[in-house]
């Protein structure tokens, strides 16, 4: 371990999953690393919390199906306690009339299910659509693993990267290559409509193009989000549904354990307020809220880019143009979460007593593409939809350890709620926390009558909580809106997509960097590669 002159090789700001991933990779490469987490707990929004005595639940992030397999492998997360469980069902989307769309991990089972429900045309089309999503998602995955090329002064490496991507692109074959160029910027509603007929099935797939965004299925570019969601893990048209045993917090604990095992130090309750620069304008360390200063050869911000550039960095050093640009990074948070402790497993009408379909993602209020769009409409005018879209998981069906301290039969249901705009027009979030909880229970009541009576404890996280408690500017769980304007070469800003920020020796490793949000470890892994290269060169 090399701590030269009291300074670390890398000081990582933020102990969320990307910060920890980046730290673990750097420590594994032999660098001296310190992680600083503002909160008392590690994990950021990938954590497990106790919402009632003996009942543990995810707070914000629910599942970990998009974690890059290479991260788990390289850091040997299994030996650090990570255990993943993938149920046979991926999505259960019940409608109030008792019908439902059910997508299974097994393609043939899904096809059979669609046929059984009278969707013969879609049953026939689904395998082709699934193949298309896998193929296009595969290319997006390669893109995700690539550091965006330097377009200002391209070097040999950039040329090689370009060639590799060109090969991947050609590998799609003529038909898919043509398709991907046409569909990337398309509205996901149009994309699914090209292959599928049933409105409910379209909605169940299209949802993945708008999850975590302030966009509706008719917004251009949402197909790209669907493909991003399908990138890397072979989720196909149904998408991945994978739980970490012990909740999402178990993943971040495994990451922290791995980082420590490679020699990284981790401090919690350590709030960074400033990135310290020297006379040459290079980042040389950080200052904590306590006044303590810690030196580092590389400063790695695994927090959102706006906070990094506007709060931590000296405005004079950044300059007015970059401040204007950073200030315009859009972070319109529209996600809230609600966690319910239930005295018994609720009866979902459309499940017809079959508990197996409840083990994946339960999609509520997405009865059709227009239902998604209408829920989004409300958010445009600063309101919460009367019919919010909810993606729920009952993780206690998978992992009884989450409720092992509670009464027998207890279950925990966690709901991701959209669209709940961070900026409400005629209300403030602290004032409508309960209203939101009530609306979510009401939405669940429509498809699982009687669920309200089973609720023994409830906890609500509003977009304001995401901003205030988790430090996400704008309350955006993905740090910067995953829209076309913030992709690859221009995520978070054109010219700064290569993890190197405008201040020399300051790096970005959070979800605001390429390839963006989700519990993937991608930005942290990619950033570590670039930081290690720079540290070796110096």
């Amino acid at each position, binding site marked *: 371990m090399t701590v030269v002159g009291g300074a670390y090789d890398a000081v990582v700001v933020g102990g969320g999953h990307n910060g920890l991933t980046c730290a673990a990779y750097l420590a594994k490469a032999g660098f001296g690393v310190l992680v600083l987490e503002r909160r008392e707990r590690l994990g950021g929004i990938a954590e497990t919390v106790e919402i009632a005595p003996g009942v543990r639940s995810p707070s914000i992030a629910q599942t970990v199906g998009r974690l890059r397999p290479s991260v788990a492998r390289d850091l040997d997360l299994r030996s650090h306690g990570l255990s993943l469980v993938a149920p046979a069902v991926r999505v259960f989307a019940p409608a109030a009339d008792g019908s439902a769309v059910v997508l299974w991990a097994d393609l043939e089972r899904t096809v059979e299910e669609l046929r059984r429900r009278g969707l013969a045309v879609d049953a026939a089309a689904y395998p082709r659509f699934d193949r298309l999503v896998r193929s296009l998602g595969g290319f997006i995955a390669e893109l995700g693993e690539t550091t965006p090329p330097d*377009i*200002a002064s391209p070097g040999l490496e950039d040329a090689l990267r370009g060639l590799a991507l060109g090969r991947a692109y*050609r590998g799609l074959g*003529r*038909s898919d*290559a*043509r398709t991907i*160029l*046409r*569909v*990337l*910027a*398309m509205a996901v509603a*149009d994309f699914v409509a*090209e292959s599928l007929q049933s409105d409910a099935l379209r909605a169940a797939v299209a949802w993945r193009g708008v999850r975590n965004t302030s*966009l509706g299925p*008719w*917004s*251009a*570019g949402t197909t790209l989000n669907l493909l991003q969601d399908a990138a890397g893990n072979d989720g196909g048209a149904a998408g991945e549904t994978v739980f970490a045993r012990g909740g999402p917090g178990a993943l971040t604990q495994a990451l922290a354990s791995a980082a420590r095992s490679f020699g990284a130090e981790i401090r919690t309750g350590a709030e960074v307020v400033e990135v310290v620069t020297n006379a040459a304008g290079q980042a040389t360390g950080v200052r904590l809220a306590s006044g303590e200063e810690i030196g580092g050869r590389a400063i790695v911000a695994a927090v959102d880019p706006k906070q990094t550039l506007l709060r931590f960095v000296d405005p004079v050093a950044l300059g007015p*143009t970059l401040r*204007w*640009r950073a200030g*315009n990074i*859009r972070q319109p948070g529209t996600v809230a979460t609600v966690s319910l402790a239930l005295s018994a497993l609720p009866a979902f009408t459309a499940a017809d007593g079959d508990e197996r379909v409840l083990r994946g993602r339960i999609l509520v209020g997405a009865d059709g593409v*227009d239902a998604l*769009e*209408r829920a989004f*409409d409300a958010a*445009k*005018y600063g309101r919460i939809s009367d019919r919010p879209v909810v993606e729920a998981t009952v993780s206690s069906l998978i992992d009884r350890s989450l409720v092992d301290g509670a009464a027998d039969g207890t279950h925990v249901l966690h709901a991701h709620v959209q669209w709940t705009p961070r900026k409400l027009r005629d209300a403030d979030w602290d004032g409508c926390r309960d209203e939101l909880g009530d609306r979510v229970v009401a939405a669940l009541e429509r498809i699982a009558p009687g669920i309200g009576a089973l609720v023994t404890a409830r906890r609500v996280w509003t977009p304001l909580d995401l901003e205030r408690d988790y430090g996400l500017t704008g309350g955006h769980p993905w740090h910067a809106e995953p*829209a*076309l*304007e913030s*992709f690859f*070469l*221009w995520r978070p*800003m*054109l*010219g700064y997509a290569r993890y190197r920020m405008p201040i020399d020796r300051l790096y970005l490793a959070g979800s605001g960097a390429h390839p963006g949000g989700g519990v993937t470890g991608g930005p942290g892994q990619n950033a570590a590669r670039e930081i290690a290269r720079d540290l070796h060169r110096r």
Partner: protein
Amino acid sequence: MPARYDAVVIGGGHNGLIAGAYLARGGLRTLILERRHVLGGAAVTEEIVRGFRFSVASYVVSLLRPEIIRELDLPGHGLHILPLDGTFTPLRKGDGPKGGDYLWRVNDHPRTVRELRRWSLRDADAYEEYGLLMVEMAKFIKPILGLLPPDPTGWDPREFLPLAGLVRDFQRLPAREQAVFVQLMTMSSADFLDQWFETDPLKATMAASGIIGTYLGIRSPGTAYVLLHHYMGEIDGAFRAWGIPKGGTGGISEAIGRAARAQGAEIRTEAPVARLLTRDGRATGVALADGEEIEADTVVSTADAKVTFLDLVEPGLLDPSFEAEIRRFKFRGSSGKVNLALEHLPEFTCLPNAEDLEHLRGAISLSPSTDDMERAYDDAKYGRWSAKPYVDIIIPTLVDPAMAPPGKHVMSCFVQYAPYHLDPSLGSWDDNREAFGDTVVDRIAEFAPNIREAIVGRQVLTPLDIERTIGLTEGNIFQGELSLEQLFFNRPVPGYARFRTPIRDLWLAGSSTHPGGGIMGANGRLAALEVLRAKRGALAAVGAGR
């Protein structure tokens, strides 16, 4: 009349006339065939109410390529463009903090800045900076309009050579302009404008030019690009050089028609083409509706992609995958047009006509707030015309009094949104034409109550009417949506963005092709030049073989 032609052009709209003129200029014996009795397609002037003449569909001009005006000597053939000055946004009482006021931007830049200072000092400063930036952006993107899109699935590096210059030019832009260019290509017009402006009616009115002709709202990603599309016209002449042709937009078509004839092209009206003639997979001419067959070496269609490939081409001739892609090409017309014959001028409550009529001489934009604009779109998404539509109004008689009897006026109202596909519960557009017209008049009356008593005649064009009379599929004024996935090398179908079609000797030259719609003419000209180049290539090959 000769037995056969070198080239037959289907459609006497502006692109057809321009293509025909260039083909004739290149020495080809050319015939242009127009279905209707009048030339111009969407750019026509007709007397709908006795004594009142209207630019029926297309109503302003700014994008017409200057090289076309020059090369075809259109002024010499009678083209006379009268300037339109300014955009006037009236507000009703209750429209935001300055309800009952108005926002009025004119070509005189210092005056506009003074006006904006009434609203926001910050916006007045930003307006200056924004305008300069957009002109830079338009300068950068303009060469793309004259560029032949590559075939990105061609695997041939040479395909991308034309793009190399563009990449170089991009690299030479300052970093901020590079970033803004990327934003223009990806963002919504409302989000894009948010970066500069805080005055809501200003943002709403500016953003409106991002949605014209699209089935998108001002908050939909991809609309910022359309903002730029509308700025293109403003860089060739004066800043914001919008105008109306003397005699209405039909005046343009007549001038181009005369220019085409002067180059030697023949033009026939009331000659609807029923189908394409082919032999061994090659186009050999056209058959008219009355059965007459006209032979030609080359057929250039300026009908839209759907009409050309699905109506005119005999079924089974096209490769099924190509045909599927054409069926996928999205039209979804979203706009209507209401033309009013007026006894007297409307009077907007926020600025009475007593003193001066200057504010009525430009565009009058009913776009009081960004929410208003977005709600108008929300209605359309679910298959209804906007209850409170965005209306872009021009009163041509204020600059061209000959369009109406003395003292009277014509008023052109472009209306959005009017979705082609209505919710089934509403029935067809034929059942709703007058109700739609009433909605538009009611909307105008919110701002100018005396409009009702001024109306002596009205023509309502729904998207269905636009499809029927002008022949534009689903009433899309751009012959296909200008959405991101339908631009450049994807327009109309990847691999066929260079005017050639899978059928030999059949070419496409209308707005369904790159660079899209508007009275721009670039499509017709570029396509004609490609046809001529291909012909010369073929001749050279024959010559070499001898």
